[in-house]
């Protein structure tokens, strides 16, 4: 039984106030559903239209499969299918960084939440402070670091900086501090478990939701990162976000100098945009369950 059930119990009186309240809730919900969903729906429809149809037909008038495949063809033909190269790069960088992030942030958040060592507060404050720094200020020094060790253009030049994920540490810290009781851990210690065992056998199983959560956020943040890969992995090694802006530069509406030759039209750009977000959407679909459970302080309940 959850708190939500309380709301569905029939009320004895339907006061005008209660009815108004319900109506307001409905209006708000519907408005925001439209607000969030309409642009996405439009994007889906726009991928199937010809450039002319995009301008002349209504936004929700359906296009045709023929136009969709034409747009797809145009995208695939662009520089011999570089869009797939970009997608592959994004995948490599995001997943690579994800693995390293999980390995480093989960134990760190655990120790910050449940440990008691000197420098704990310092590390927490540092994490928060670093999160507040404008990233263009950091991109150049990171670029210098990467080039000092000759890594520019190497996938590691994207993967390593991506792996630093203070937000993940903070999330893990909050999770562990709210949902894993110290007493549980102490009990295990008293029973003779070593620290590693305590972590692996007691804390980790409880932490599965936050692992999924951190993994998800890390993947999405890495996938959408623009400025760092723009500098450190340019050209054919670029991820899809950087590639998308390059595609933008080939759309005549946005760049007159590209008119007439190898131009990308607006609907093709729509296809590219959709393609660039599909992996994240898929990942989200699969991690739906964890995203909700992850923040429930499930350790102490039920």
């Amino acid at each position, binding site marked *: 039984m*959850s708190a*939500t059930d*309380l709301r569905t119990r029939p009320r004895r009186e339907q006061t005008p106030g209660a009815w108004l*309240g319900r109506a307001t*809730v409905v209006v708000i*919900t519907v408005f*925001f559903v439209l*607000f*969030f*969903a309409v642009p*996405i*729906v439009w994007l889906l429809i*726009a991928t199937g239209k010809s450039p002319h149809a*995009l301008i002349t037909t209504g*936004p929700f008038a359906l296009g045709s499969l023929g136009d969709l495949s034409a747009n797809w063809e145009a995208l695939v033909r662009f520089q011999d299918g570089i869009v797939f190269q970009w997608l592959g790069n994004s995948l490599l960088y995001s997943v690579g960084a994800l693995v390293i992030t999980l390995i*480093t*942030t989960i134990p*760190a958040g655990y*120790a*910050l939440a449940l*440990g*008691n*060592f000197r420098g704990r507060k310092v*590390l927490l404050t540092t994490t928060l*402070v670093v999160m*507040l720094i*404008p*990233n*263009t*200020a*950091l991109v150049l*020094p990171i670029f*210098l*670091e990467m080039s000092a060790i000759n890594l520019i253009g190497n996938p590691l030049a994207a993967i390593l*900086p991506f*792996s*630093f994920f*203070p937000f993940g540490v903070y999330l893990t810290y909050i999770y562990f*501090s709210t949902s894993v009781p*110290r*007493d549980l851990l*102490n009990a295990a*210690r008293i029973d003779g478990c070593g*620290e590693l065992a305590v972590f692996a056998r007691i804390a980790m199983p409880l932490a599965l939701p936050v692992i999924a959560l951190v993994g998800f956020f890390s993947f*999405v943040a890495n996938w*959408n990162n*623009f*400025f760092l890969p723009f500098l450190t992995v340019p050209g054919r090694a670029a991820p899809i976000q950087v590639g998308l*802006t390059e595609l*933008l530069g080939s759309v005549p509406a*946005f760049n007159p100098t590209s008119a007439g030759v190898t131009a990308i039209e607006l609907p093709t750009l*729509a296809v590219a945009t959709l393609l660039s977000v599909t992996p*994240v959407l898929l990942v*989200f679909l699969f991690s*739906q369950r964890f*995203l*909700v459970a992850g*923040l*429930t302080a499930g350790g*102490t309940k039920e």
Partner: protein
Amino acid sequence: MTAPALDDSPSAAAAGSPREGRRQRAATPHRSVTVKWSRFSYVFVSGYVLFALAFGVLPTLYAVFIAFLDNEGRFSGITNFTKVLADFRFWPAAAHVGLFLLVWLVALMVLVTLLALVVHGIGRRWLSSSLRFVYYIPGALAGASSVVLWLFVLNPTVSPVSAVLHAFGFETFVQTVSPGNLPVVFAVIAFWTGAGNWIIVMYGALNSIPDEVLEAARMDGAGAVRTALHIQLPMLRKWIAYMAVMSLAAGAQLFVEPRVLSQATHAVVPTDWSLNQLTYLYAFKQQDLNGSAAIAVLLLVASLAVSLFFVVRGGLFERD
């Protein structure tokens, strides 16, 4: 002392501290365990600390360091700062970002909380979870992708909501993105992509409020609004503060959105609209890394000051 009973007081899940007392009492007889645990903690944080040093601390220190040098590497005091503050683009950019943050943070804090409460209060699970899904989907389009999408949505000629745009009096794309509208435009885009994330976080936090508390409130005759105001909101305080801090950090760093919009509008949205765009121009167009670092340091100091407010008020560092 036997293993302490599981704590199920109402405030345990969120902002309380009764556990601390219990912890201290339990720790004393088992000092050797805690000692070993303390030492081992270093191992656990070592990986993260390494990355934090390499990609967090060192670059920050470097940025602060070069903000006080001139381009020959000699110490130059605060000349970079005075130069940057006197730049004709600085204060407009600061005002732009400030306005944007104001609109965005208010919208975020009010609307996300409201939507989370609404979604949480819905009885049917399938409805609740599909709503959350719908609200979240735009979050998958963060960064360049969402701006490209909004290029279409903001253009009255192709937009799905052209009726709305016309109602505001915008007949052309240039009118929609005219300078006066930009803070709101960017706030709308940012809200569209970011709200879903936070709604889910808030929803999860709401879930962690034990049923007994809500039941007790209901029995005391509290309606939905009273329950929200007196029980749920205080529980969410920490999360709302966290959301505000994170959004402030992200918002102050506004870069990709104005940059892409600038590219697409041929600089009608200027290349120096946000402070971060200005740091970019200094570093790469004017080849003045020191000035760029100076702006970054100023931005950092301002963000820190404001976020300290939220940290203190929201009790972010209290541990349960």
